[in-house]
């Protein structure tokens, strides 16, 4: 059985057995949870279905968050992408950005989402995987298996560094989500287990130090847009890994660094709304707008 204490352990075990990481983790989790593999795949299919529903419902023009501070971002981005042939990013990436905005916006509007790994970072994985499924014609089973890869890497990050903003800042939420998504993307595109680990390392390294500074303490500003930047880093990290541009620091050491950086971060920058964007004059004004003086 896998211990989920290091990325290296998982990638090496998969490579040794000639399996995709997702296949290995599915076998292992079925054994650990004493349930048939088909049942676990079914649960993951349900998660994927909820992700796709959130992608749909989040594109509504009238979507608004509970506080009224945000809403309609996915709709605006979709309109822009349609009239500009995908804008600067191109239609595929622009579509993925729309999906990440839709899911993060659904979360802020009290809609149904899948925490991946957290509610605040719930748009990154669906933004990546629903795009491959809907726009690149990847079959569902391959997607579902890659979600086991993402989940396994997330378990390692949770054990080694933590995945809550209160513990480690946004690097622990959107950074972890991007690392997980980069590994899943790499696997879907035919990368080796080692390349999945590389993609995770690059994505985590690119978000080290990112603080959690939500305006008014709400999962909206800047969380919704950070789902987009996390998604972009996931795509670029996967492409770098697939191209053979290896990270110089291995994934496990990047995750150790995340823990150390999270520990060194002041409490004001760890989900307490005491610093960063939350403490700016405009951030304060927005807080008063929602909660009063």
């Amino acid at each position, binding site marked *: 059985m896998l211990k*989920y204490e290091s990325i290296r352990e998982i990638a090496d075990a998969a490579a040794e057995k000639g399996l995709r990481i997702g296949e290995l*983790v599915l076998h292992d*989790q079925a054994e*650990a*949870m004493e349930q048939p593999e088909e049942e*676990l795949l079914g*649960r*993951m299919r*349900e*998660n994927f279905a*909820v992700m796709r529903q959130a992608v749909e419902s989040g594109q509504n023009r009238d979507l608004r*968050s*509970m*506080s009224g*501070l945000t809403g309609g971002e996915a709709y605006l981005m979709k309109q822009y992408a349609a009239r500009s042939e995908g804008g600067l990013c191109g239609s595929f990436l622009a579509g993925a950005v729309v999906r990440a905005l839709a899911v993060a916006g*659904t*979360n*802020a*509007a*009290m*809609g*149904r*989402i*899948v*925490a*991946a*790994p*957290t*509610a*605040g970072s*719930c748009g990154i*994985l669906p933004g990546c995987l629903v795009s491959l499924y809907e726009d690149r014609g990847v079959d569902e089973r391959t997607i579902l298996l890659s*979600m*086991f890869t*993402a*989940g*396994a890497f*997330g*378990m390692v990050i*949770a*054990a080694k560094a933590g*995945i*809550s903003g*209160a513990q480690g800042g946004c690097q622990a939420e959107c950074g972890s989500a991007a690392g*997980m998504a980069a590994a899943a993307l790499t696997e879907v595109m035919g990368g080796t287990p080692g390349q999945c680990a590389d993609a995770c390392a690059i994505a985590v390294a690119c978000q080290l130090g990112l603080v959690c500074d939500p305006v*008014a*303490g*709400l*999962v*909206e500003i800047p969380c919704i847009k950070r789902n987009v930047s996390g998604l972009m880093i996931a795509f670029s990290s996967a492409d770098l890994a697939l191209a053979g541009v290896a990270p110089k620091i291995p994934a496990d050491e990047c995750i150790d660094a995340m823990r150390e950086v999270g520990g060194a971060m002041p409490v004001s920058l760890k989900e307490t*709304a005491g610093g960063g964007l939350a403490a700016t004059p405009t951030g304060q004004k927005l807080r008063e707008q*929602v*909660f009063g003086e």
Partner: protein
Amino acid sequence: MNVFDIIGPIMIGPSSSHTAGAVRLGRVANKLMDGQTPARLDITLSGSFARTGRGHGTDRALLAGIMGYHSYSEEIRDALAIASGRGIDYRFIRRDIPDTHPNTARVEYVLPNGERGSVQGASIGGGNIRVDLVNDMKVDFNGDSHTLLVMHLDRPGVIASVTNLMRWEYSELNICNFHLSRERKGGNAIMTIEVDSRPPDSLIADIRRLENVTNALLIRRL
């Protein structure tokens, strides 16, 4: 931990601690009321629940949980209207309860037959909860294990009758934590019993039939 703790749970946003955890706290009250619709609710929001709860829908989430909805129920968004529709007279009080976790809520209920009860607990992150007080008696469990709450009268032999029942009729159950609390000698008391595996539903009915037991409920692991 398993892979579905990371890719999951399916939940209503926006916050696992301020929304999903609040639903779960509300559900403890729902179980205490045995699923009945209360006539009246006084819900105290303390700390961060009081300050940022409105933007996170904490009030709706608590109310939804009290009405028996789950952290994935879309009804959470409309919980205020649903509660009014059911004739529940609810009020929210924003007041800091001293010496408590920053995300603490207290629910006091009155049932249509006049019976009263209360739950106080905290949402401690990631949708996990810790229950501190039931009917103002100290309990302490966090929902990491399956937890039985047994309300009973403080009489000799009640603990033995509960644990003997578990030993002889449900021999696969292993108790991993036990806590007893009482109002006063001979008065109301509560056992908090955490077990390693999920008990069958029949256990609760069997415990409720024991002498001097006034109520029993099961709070399943997250």
